[in-house]
């Protein structure tokens, strides 16, 4: 488990807040499946600096288009 609380109770509450019903057992199962992916994702996010912005991908694509 990473530092963030991402157990079944959390996911069940998230789902309920979005109008989606999950049983506690189903929420536990989904939270367990999501955890390793989110943990690896958190490690990747830790590499970001604040100036890695949302537009960078499109900026690089545009630059490559001019180069092509």
């Amino acid at each position: 488990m990473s530092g963030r609380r991402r157990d079944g109770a959390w996911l069940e509450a998230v789902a309920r807040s979005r109008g989606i019903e999950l049983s506690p057992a189903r929420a536990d199962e989904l939270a367990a499946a999501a955890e390793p992916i989110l943990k690896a994702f958190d490690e990747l996010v830790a590499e970001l600096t604040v100036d890695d912005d949302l537009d960078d991908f499109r900026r690089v694509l545009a630059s490559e288009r001019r180069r092509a």
Partner: protein
Amino acid sequence: MTELWWLSVEELARAVRSGELAPADVAGTFVERAREVDAALSCFVRVDAPSADVAPPAGPLHGVPYAYKDVFARDGRRPTVGVPDLQLPLRAPSADVLDLLDGAGAVAIGALNLDPIAYAATGLNADVGDARNPWNPERITGGSSSGAAAAVAAGAIPFAVGTDAGGSIRIPAAFCGVTGLKPTYGAVSARGAVPLTFSQDTVGVLARSARDVALVTAVAAETELSLEIDLGNLRVGVDRSFVEQRASANVARALDDAVAVLAGLGATVVEVQLDRLNRFDVAATVTTWAEALAVHERTLAANPDVYPPVVRGRLELALAAHGADHVNALRLRGRALRELLGGPFAVADVLVAPTTARAAPPIASVAADATNVSLEQLRLNRPFNFTGVPSVSLPMGFDGDGLPLGFQLAGRPWSEATVLATAAAYQAATDWDLRRPPLFR
């Protein structure tokens, strides 16, 4: 004499243009063929007989029949997205890409089967019918553009339009032995298509040869694509340890042979490292979660049973992605593309990789393990979606059971001409793209 349905896009267009073939006769023959093939392979959601009274406009695709994955709006008709009871509103009455193809003279003869909401890579669809592989109908087609690949491979249509958010054109192209291009992100308009993941969805073309894919893509992307290339100036990057870790021995051997063909044509083979690229796969997953949920959340809340259980489960799993996670995943995208350009593409013009880890598995075995079968193929393809670069899959041989194997040629953004020209040069030197499934010759 070659049957009409095995003519290339180029040959059909030329024959119609010269008056040798009448567009209505061509369309009629393909509609009949499509119905026969569909009865065996469940590759169509719908076959439409076009009106014989309306002549298609003259253009580069004059009178050439095609079909499209059923995610595109057309003439105000909403697509099923592979889930017949799902009603998703679309603003555009017709998808831009279909308008462009129709304007170039192509003739749509139907909508094609797919994995439900395009959120898997197997071709299994209990509601519409599992799409079946023309090389062995007990095998999967791959997906999600399942019907597109099967219909092209069986000669039901000379080309198809699909979408690819993580391999959905390339995976079925490889399993069914055809050629399929995922273009640069944004190169072909996705307006009028039901999205899976806005940031990664790309609209692309499947056909039997790279030449045909290029001809149609030039229309769809409103560009020119020259297939002239000097392979003596081409650097081909390969990461053999990446291949060995992710693909079967059969596939790795066939890829070695494909690389040897390219080297024999004059290309320089260089070693590259793709492992760092692969670590972004989790960011692609988080992006897909958030964006698929954005499209389907209202329906999931109001009418969850409309989705097949596996799809419903994937959408529920997506609830685990927070809004900030989605933003961070998109922030990682620029970084991933910069790493790809500064690493592998600093030393290579095109990268080769297997499209699938193995040949198409049996439907019976996949039904019990659909998620893992999808993931096994997605991880070879999704890095090129997350980074938005073009990648074409083309046939590179067969396994011991006579099933096709495919490999990818990926290039820098906007280098569709380079990857397709390389693919065309490879196909001119080999005959894998000319083989036909014995059941449909």
